[in-house]
């Protein structure tokens, strides 16, 4: 019999805690497959965040560090500076990276830190129960914006990929989505390029992934994927925001 699909050994057999229709499972798989394909499992260190991916260390079959909320890029910096031959990545959500950890991500990029960041943008705080994130869309209802996000009151959503792309030390920045199969294929290619950027010591790399949170959006898994396409992608355009890896 011909094997057409096999789970990557870079994921453990632990059953994930994510909700049905959540994008984290897809992105975990993509990251793990990329690590397998690049042959770097035995030298990759994962820094997982505070947020829904807090248990990432149970799923990635590599050495892992649990970082404090928002601090993964700083902690990853310490690790990378000690062992520069390791491949070090952070996996962070939008509350973690775009809110409480805004300083750490900006300065990791600014230093051209040779690390890779996988940034999950699902426009909401997932683990704490659906509060407004810096990435929450205008008008979007959350548990702390019950009348919809009002830009007069708390500003418009932050576009992290575009912001990081303005920083000199960032070598490769792309925004992708996991709303449909063609986009998932593109997302994997972007993640692979981001890790390759680090292997080649080109500088800081970040992939922003538009991802679903059906539970906190109050949608079915299918509706959630549709909402990424109809509402998120128009505000968060996909594509490469910066690429100096060939320079």
């Amino acid at each position, binding site marked *: 019999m011909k094997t057409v699909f096999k789970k990557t*050994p870079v994921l453990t057999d632990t059953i994930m805690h994510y909700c049905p229709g959540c994008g984290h499972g897809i992105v975990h798989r993509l990251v793990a497959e990329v690590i397998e394909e690049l042959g770097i499992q035995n030298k990759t260190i994962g820094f997982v965040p505070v947020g829904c991916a807090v248990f990432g*260390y149970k799923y990635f079959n590599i*050495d892992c560090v649990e970082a*404090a909320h928002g601090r993964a890029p*700083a902690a990853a910096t*310490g690790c990378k500076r000690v062992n520069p031959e390791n491949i070090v990545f952070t996996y962070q959500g939008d509350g973690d990276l775009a809110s409480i950890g805004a*300083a750490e991500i900006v300065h990791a990029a600014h230093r051209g830190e040779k690390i890779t960041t996988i940034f999950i943008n699902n426009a909401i705080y997932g683990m704490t129960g659906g509060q407004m994130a810096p990435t929450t869309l205008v008008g979007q209802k959350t548990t702390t914006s019950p009348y919809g996000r009002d830009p007069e009151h708390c500003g418009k959503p932050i576009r992290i990929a575009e912001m990081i792309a303005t920083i000199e030390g960032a070598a490769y920045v792309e925004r992708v989505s996991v709303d449909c199969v063609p986009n998932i294929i593109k997302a994997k290619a972007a993640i692979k390029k981001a890790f390759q950027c680090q292997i080649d010591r080109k500088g800081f790399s970040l992939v922003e992934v538009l991802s679903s949170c059906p539970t906190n959006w109050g949608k079915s898994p299918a509706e959630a994927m549709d909402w990424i396409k109809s509402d998120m992608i128009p505000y968060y355009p996909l594509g490469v925001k910066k690429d100096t890896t060939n320079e």
Partner: protein
Amino acid sequence: MAKKLMKGSEAIPEAAIQAGCRFFFGYPITPQNDIPEYMSARLPKVGGCFLQAESEVAAINMVYGAAAAGARVMTSSSSPGVSLKQEGISYIAGAELPCVICNMMRGGPGLGSIQPSQGDYFQATKGGGHGDYHLIVLAPSSVQEAVDLMHNAFDLADIYRTPVMLLADGIIGQMMEPVEFHEHEKRELPAKPWAVTGYDPNGDRPRAIVNSLYIEVDELQEMNDRLQARYKEIQEKEVMVEKYNTEGAEVIVCAYGTVARICKSAIALCAEKGVKVGLIRPITLWPFPEKELVEVMSQPSVKRELTVEISAGQMHEDVRLAINGAKPTDFYGKPGSYTPTAEEIAEYILKTREA
């Protein structure tokens, strides 16, 4: 090796490097900037790495990451900056990682002053951040002692997998004294199989996970039990204290750091007046030398105790807990940055004696 005249905040980083520290992450704050400055010049020359972080918060998290990778690593700061580091220190304690933190205390609260202080005793010895944890806290009273204690600091951190704090006042950092860097007794250090260096699925070492998250009550209990057992062992084995002139003393002064040296001058002034005063100087503030203090206090000659600090009496609480009402205790000092003189202390001792 010949003695060298060195400023405390240059001798301390040099001692750290000689103790094997190769990584330093910090952020500028007065009065300890000579430490990161010294590290930035020296570490690249010994194959290490100095990095100026974007904040105190980032610096302590870089320490967390470097310690997770198995390095000998340190940071330094002064009071307001150390407050910012508390989140990270709690995580380092929870994840059972070794590191060294130097606090050159300045006056507080808030932005306070840049003059010496001892106002961070509570923060240093009672935990500082959230959760039930302790740091080993070392308090030098001379530049030479600061140099010697740096070796202890890194060894203790590795042996007990805990953050260790060198708690000094601004005077220790700023004054110049002759120092000697000599060989230190080598303690047996444990291996670091828990460090994240890359997991080989075909190798012998299990996957390394550095973490302080234990979502199940039982698992968190197990971690806390492990920490508390370790703290007990530290209390039993690692107390350091100086007893000075205590035999047959009438008054026992308890002081640490620079203040303890001023107290020695006050003791000499009292002796001129025919009053015998002794000094108990905790070198480890945590573990606090409780037994040693009680032992000295229990001498029949000792009438009372006096704690002297540049604080509102923070260490005095631990002194009172140790003495536990057996004999009278008193406090002399002020919060902020007011450093008492030997004359003032002697005068207070003699005056209260008459009363």
